[in-house]
């Protein structure tokens, strides 16, 4: 597979702040690529430099191997983090407006079906709910039948059900063979959608790979969770206990069977026992020493 997008040593400096500090990566065609990191990590600045909205201070961006490729604007679909729509236009009129900007645009009916817009197609665009507006913005991003689609925190601020629905839409687009570039600060979103990830913090990439490879590389362990009080504190030193937060004792296990046997031997109460795999949240905490939501 060939890289549709190559980013080399990208920098962006605002006055005294290095928002992006030497980021490089490649995105393979047809994959979903995730930029993951906390708020203020430089995700949006990075994605907007690629989109051509913000000029980089230095670095190189190649689309299909060509720097400043004039085709990019016609072949890219873009959804910003927050965009207002025209005040007095209906949803269908907004779609018609944006459709008019491109040489080839998808039929409105197809977008309506793809993004589930039929319920509010004739509503004023300024009076939609958060989830509805994100779907309209996704439809606008798809209107030119783009090869590559940029989604900047598309589910931020949505309720859990709307988020799940939105993930389904993104998965459908992925199945059409489109390349997707996604920024998010939700680990579950990145795990659920992305084939490749870079984890960004303070303008730099601190880890990259597939979600699974990242977890295997950094962990290769399981997490055993017990209710607080189910294991007496004087026995903690027999195990690798990472946290005792939220009335929960979390034990890291390199060998699940032997750890469980050990717990039984200690006489621990296992009635509330849970075993889970490490998440990207755990990974982020491990790499940076601070949680994603800090």
């Amino acid at each position, binding site marked *: 597979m060939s890289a549709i997008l190559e980013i080399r040593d990208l920098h962006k400096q605002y006055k005294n702040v290095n928002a992006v500090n030497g980021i490089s990566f490649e995105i393979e065609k047809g994959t979903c690529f995730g930029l993951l990191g906390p708020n203020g990590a430089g995700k949006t600045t990075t994605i907007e430099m690629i989109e051509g909205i913000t000029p980089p201070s230095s670095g190189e961006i190649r689309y299909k191997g060509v720097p400043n490729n004039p085709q990019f604007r016609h072949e890219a679909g873009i959804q*910003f983090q927050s*965009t207002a729509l025209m005040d*007095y236009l209906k949803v269908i009129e907004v779609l*018609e*407006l944006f459709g008019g900007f491109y040489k080839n645009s998808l039929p409105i009916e197809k977008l309506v079906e793809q993004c589930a817009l039929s319920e509010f197609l004739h509503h004023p665009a300024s009076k939609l709910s958060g989830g509805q507006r994100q779907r309209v913005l996704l439809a606008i991003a798809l209107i030119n039948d783009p090869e590559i689609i940029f989604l900047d925190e598309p589910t931020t601020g949505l309720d859990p059900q709307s988020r799940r629905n939105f993930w389904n839409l993104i998965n459908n687009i992925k199945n059409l063979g489109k390349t997707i570039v996604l920024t998010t600060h939700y680990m579950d979103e990145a795990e659920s959608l992305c084939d490749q990830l870079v984890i960004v913090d303070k303008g730099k990439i601190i880890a990259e790979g597939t979600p699974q490879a990242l977890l295997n590389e950094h962990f290769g362990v399981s997490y055993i969770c017990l209710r607080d009080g189910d294991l007496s504190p004087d026995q903690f030193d027999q195990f690798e206990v990472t946290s005792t937060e939220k009335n929960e004792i979390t034990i890291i296990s390199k060998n699940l069977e032997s750890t469980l046997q050990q717990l039984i031997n200690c006489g621990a109460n296992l009635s509330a026992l849970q075993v889970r795999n490490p998440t990207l949240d755990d990974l982020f905490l491990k790499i940076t020493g601070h949680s994603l939501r800090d």
Partner: protein
Amino acid sequence: MKRILSLFLARNKEYYRDRASLIWSFVMPPLIIAVVALAFSRGEQPLFRLGVLGETTAEISQKIDQKGVQVIRYDDQEEALQKIKYHQIDLLIQPSTEQFWVNPISQKSDFVKTLFIDHASFESGTSNWQENTVSGNKVRYVDWAIPGIIGMNLMFSSLFGIGYVIVRYRKNGVLKRLQASPVRPIEFLTAQILSRLIIMIIVSAIVFMVANFILDFVMLGSYFNLFLVAVLGMLSLLSLGLIVASRLANEEFANGLLNFFAFPMMLLSEVWFSLDGAPQWMSTISSCLPLTHMVQSARAIMLDGAGLADISHHLLVLGLMTMVFMIIATSIFRWRES
């Protein structure tokens, strides 16, 4: 072209649906016209006004040195005849040829005649003075003010109509979204200008026709020339609005800046009163304002029947202003707040 058309149509729909602005643009100008028509309908001038064409003689000088008579000198016969025709002077005399002109429709005209022309000798035929008549209805204040009022409305509509929308769209991210599409700034700005221009032409034409039906304005020139002046005037004002809106993302500041341009024009562009006797500096400022050229040429067309050649200097200035403003606006335009 397809992109401009899409933006143009979308903007028209937005304007049409913005009921408050739509109603306002139809209500405000007739309201002002009505107020002016009512307030000045009986506003007669207390003075008699005598026009003197060319050099005066000792005999006439002696006669005209009377209280209550304002004397206005003219060198151009055409201009002087227009003045008597529209009751702006009551009598016109030309001492060098011993001719005078009266307007038979004006009562004052007949009266002033008796002050200057020896009645007995004139009636008996022994006077050398020759009487001429120039008929025409009085130019009311409302006739004089109407080009100013419509011009002022076009000015506000041009500056604020285009400025506000762009600033708001920059503030809420609509412009950023357009930036990410293949739309170029010049296409976006052209669509905004065309949409506003056509909407204003339609609104103003309706307002003009309705007001004309009720008040029956003096209209001596060609409607086509008036249309041309309106279009050129609006283009210059729209492009001025674009300069203001080229970078701002703060509606309050944009409002202040637009008023900074709008208010001097409202006061110094001869919308409400002539600056004939005003200090030089005021006239100089006035001549730098696009609205002045628009109003003066519209007034010349309507009241004096001026042709394109007569107002060519105004048209030239408006054209140049439009070009310069457009070049500035497109070169400093930014999709996003810098």
